[in-house]
């Protein structure tokens, strides 16, 4: 069998497609790599958990945890209330969202001889140190110790940049340190409740990675947390049932639901690919211009109507009527209006002035006048046609189409 000459294909072969896509692919890879490098070097776009012990972002608290561990303090992270061990030496509770109920605080209080609370809420204050109250944003950017608490004594002054919370003590035996310039509230409050030494840090912002190195902030935190060899860092989990967390839908659904949704999605995607694949490229059709011939006439009519050119419109109608009447009455095409009016009056037996007025003189003052005039002209034409040629059918007014 001799080789048959095959028809060349417009579709690129796999090799051609790869060659064609090589440059865009390289560019895409370079862009992705650069983006990843940027992501890692910039320390992440996501701020992560605020005051999280593993969060290296400006709002995290990894610096504090690392220094504590370097100083020989064993930090244990806990997220469930039940996991907080009973024999804890120092217990840090970071409950900025106010998740732990009063009963939870009552359960926490006896578990450690030293309880440090960051961001204490109203509920927490009511249990762990009833004398303390929330006192709002402190004035000024620095605060000096101004108290006898050994923590503050050793640390010196504090930087208050970004801090939005402070505490004050009303009655009761508790020490307030780092009171702001207006004397409203302090950053550090310590006291003793049911035998537990309670230290309240009004706002964790001062001890986040971004601010912990300022003034004595680091010292305050380290002094508060590093008193013992072991520290339990409790950060409540919103899903923890023991603090009132609910069972989520995710926990109730069977394990195969997510893969099932993915499989349905894949099936839908395959269906889209199946239906969306064209059998060859689109065909281009060059379409001709379409211009409707009556557009110019309609445009002129609207122009007459909008500008209220009634006389002009009436004249156009009259000229048409006169042009058709003249041959009907046996006059020449060049007959004057007077001649046509006279002849028409004679044919109809109507006063000449009336017809002359209709054909020449009447001036329409409103649209209703114009319509009336138009109707009169049509009637006149029909009457003249009927009078001159009684046997002729009432033909529509029409200009000769072929001459």
């Amino acid at each position, binding site marked *: *069998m001799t080789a*048959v*000459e*095959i*028809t*060349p*294909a*417009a*579709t690129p072969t796999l090799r051609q497609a790869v060659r064609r896509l090589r440059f865009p692919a390289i560019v895409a890879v370079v862009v992705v790599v650069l983006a990843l490098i940027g992501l890692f070097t910039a320390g992440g776009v996501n701020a992560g958990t605020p005051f999280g012990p593993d969060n290296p972002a400006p709002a995290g608290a990894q610096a504090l945890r690392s220094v504590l561990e370097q100083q020989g303090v064993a930090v244990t992270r806990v997220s469930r209330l039940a996991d907080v061990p009973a024999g804890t030496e120092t217990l840090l509770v970071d409950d900025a969202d106010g998740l732990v109920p009063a009963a939870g605080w009552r359960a926490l209080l006896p578990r450690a001889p030293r309880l440090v609370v960051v961001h204490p809420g109203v509920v927490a204050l009511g249990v762990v140190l009833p004398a303390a109250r929330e006192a709002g944003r402190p004035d000024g950017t620095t605060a000096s110790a101004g108290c006898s608490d050994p923590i503050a004594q050793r640390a010196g002054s504090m930087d208050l940049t970004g801090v939005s919370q402070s505490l004050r003590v009303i009655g009761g035996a508790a020490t307030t340190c780092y009171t702001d310039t207006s004397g409203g509230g302090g950053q550090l409050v310590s006291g003793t409740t049911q035998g537990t030494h309670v230290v309240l840090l009004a706002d964790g912002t001062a001890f986040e990675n971004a601010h912990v190195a300022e003034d004595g902030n680091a010292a305050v935190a380290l002094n508060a947390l590093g008193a013992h060899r072991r520290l339990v860092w409790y950060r409540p989990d919103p899903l923890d049932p023991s603090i009132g967390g609910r069972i989520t839908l995710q926990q109730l659904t*069977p*394990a*195969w639901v*997510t*893969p*099932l949704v993915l*499989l*349905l999605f*894949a099936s839908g995607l*395959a*269906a889209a690919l*199946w239906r969306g*694949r064209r*059998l*060859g*490229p689109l*065909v*281009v*059709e060059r379409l*001709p*211009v379409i211009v*409707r*011939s*009556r557009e*110019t*006439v*309609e445009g*002129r*009519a*609207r122009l*007459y*109507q909008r500008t209220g050119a009634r006389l002009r*419109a*009436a004249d*156009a*109608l009259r*000229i*048409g009527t006169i042009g058709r009447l003249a041959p009907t009455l046996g006059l020449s095409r060049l007959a004057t209006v007077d001649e046509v009016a006279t002849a028409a009056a004679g044919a109809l037996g109507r006063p000449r002035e009336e017809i002359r007025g209709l054909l020449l003189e009447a001036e329409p003052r409103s*649209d209703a006048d*114009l*319509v009336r005039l*138009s*109707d009169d002209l*049509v009637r006149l034409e029909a009457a003249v046609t009927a009078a001159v040629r009684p046997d002729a059918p009432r033909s*529509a*007014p*029409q*200009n000769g*189409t*072929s*001459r």
Partner: protein
Amino acid sequence: MVITGRVPLLLLVGLVPLVGLGGFGPAWAVGTLLAWLALVALLIGTDVATAASPRRIRVERDLPDAVRLGEPVRATLLLTNAGRGRIHGIVRDAWTPSAGAAPSRWPLDLPPGERRAFATTLTPTRRGERRSEQVTVRSLGPLRFAGRQATLVAPAAVRVLPPFNSRRHLPSRLARLRELDGRTLLQVRGQGTEFDSLREYVRGDDVRSIDWRATARNSALPGAGRRLMVRTWRPERDRRVVIVVDSGRTAAARIADETRLDTAFESSLLLTALATRAGDRVDLLVWDRRIRARVHNASSAEVLHRMVEAMAPVEPELLETDWTSVPGQIRALTSQHAFVVLVTSLEGAGSARGLLTTLPQLTSRHTVVIASVTDPAVVSMTTDRRDRDGVYLAAAAERSLLETARLAAAVRRMGAEVVTAPPEDLPPALADRYLALKAAGRL
């Protein structure tokens, strides 16, 4: 690469093992999902790899060069499998929509080394060149899950000629032409009428055409008796007819579902057919600002054919027609006195100004007829005066009719003739005017 509808179905079948095995735990569920996806991917890959190549095909075509608009034509696509595998799938011939191809895709089952024919009927809906650039072949694998697709470059074109619907008017006009031929008397013996022959007088001949000298000579012949001889005339022959079709802005207007240009082409074709039979020579010029089509010095046998071929691809341009160059173009076509037909529109003084300024140059040398399409819709607008809008519309229509009438009068004063008619009546009206001028010997 393509996939078929079996792929989404197969993926859906995977729900059964997923629900069955997924109950054992999240790892089982994810594992089942991945395994099923891998299975489907494997099947697709196998099918693509084993599908016959859609590129190893030779495409041939069998179709006519030209077709009249409105007439169906059969086009055949021939595919030869030059590869080793049996191609099973679908093939599509990419005709433009206005080619009216039905069907345009066929199921394909092509064993290696064999050739199959796929017939389609083209019913073009527009004049001009209708093309098909490619043939797309989709070849499916043995499992019919997936396959390969390639578009083959196989250009084809069919030229769609003007329909020449007005040829139904031709027999009656040819009969009138024959009546002119050999007539004893022409009302006006113009310079173009030619002496044809002498024949014996028969009852009914005009007595004024009796040639007394010939009668006398004839009576002198022995045995001839006393017979009266009459002179017969025939219409002038070998005149030049130049048809100039305006393809500019105004030709794009659509009147009664036909553009002015199409009507102009119909009129030109009827006039050409008639004039060619009458022994005249016809030249065509389609013009706006440049020559869009030109037929010059065609023999009478092929002039009609060349004309439809030339007209086929022309579409109206949205340009103002340049009339000042037209006399020069006509001079290039013929140096003699000619019957010049300008097929354009007489509507509005603005668009006709160029024509009016050029017209005297033409009328001084040639017999000029301007053929123009009128819009029956405008005439009917003057009678519909039911409400205020209708009255204004009627006034505007009267105004435009008046302008046309004035333009026609101006054209007549310049020595040209005017033929105006609605689209379907223009071709016979123009032919009649031609016959009238021919009978009068004014060509």
